[in-house]
């Protein structure tokens, strides 16, 4: 049973670029050994941490999208836990959530097309359609969250 997972790990800021790529190769090796594939790898670069982890204030974030079994992720999780250079990591299964998103998107476009046809319009949105000349107070309703709290007190 192969599933899709997302793996994000935070590498200690002391690590050099070579060490970061080395970690990526380590992950790759595990994936190949256990059986799976890497869909993509993204290096977000060095970012400030929202809070201190240990004594680190920064970290290098790397995202990997993997296909594989639960066994593979267990092994990766275990390896990342014992790697000192990695200060934090997170494994998330994404295939089911993505399927749900696809479904809701498909359902929404289907209903909008059906209703547009019922109104005698072409099924798809025409370019430049539905754009108001001046957006009045229609859009600013989400900016007064703070105000309402003040009014309650």
């Amino acid at each position, binding site marked *: 049973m192969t599933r899709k997972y997302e793996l*994000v790990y935070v590498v200690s800021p002391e690590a050099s670029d070579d060490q970061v790529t080395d970690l990526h190769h380590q992950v790759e090796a595990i994936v190949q050994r256990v059986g799976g594939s890497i869909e993509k790898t993204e290096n977000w670069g060095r970012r400030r941490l*929202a*809070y201190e982890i240990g004594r680190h204030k920064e*970290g290098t974030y790397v995202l990997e999208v993997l296909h594989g079994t639960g066994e593979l992720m267990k092994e990766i999780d275990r390896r990342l836990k014992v790697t000192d250079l990695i200060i*934090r990591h997170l494994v998330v299964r994404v295939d089911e959530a993505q399927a749900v998103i696809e479904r809701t998107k498909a359902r929404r476009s289907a209903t909008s097309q059906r209703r547009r046809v019922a109104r005698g319009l072409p099924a798809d949105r025409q370019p430049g359609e539905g754009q108001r000349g001046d957006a009045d107070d229609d859009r600013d309703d989400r900016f007064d*969250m703070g105000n*309402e709290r003040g009014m309650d007190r």
Partner: protein
Amino acid sequence: MNGRKSFGAKKGGRAGAAGAQGKDGQRRPMFRRRKVCKFCSDKIDDINYKDTKLLLPFVPERAKILPRRISGTCALHQRKLRVALMRARQLALIPYTAE
């Protein structure tokens, strides 16, 4: 003397009540915009833990998750938002508490 005192107090109380009513009368018609779920109205299906730009407005200075009663987020999206925020917190993308 005692009676007078109580009379005075009563009067004061009444005046206070009237004042509050007047205030209330002013406050009621004041327009309070209906809160709408940001994710429903903007048709954001994917509440992702990696999207800090989307998540940050839901963590005010104390870094607590903004409750539904204030943000107006619908129950479904608040649940998804909560999961995303907790994941983002784990990766230190969003703080647990304010320093």
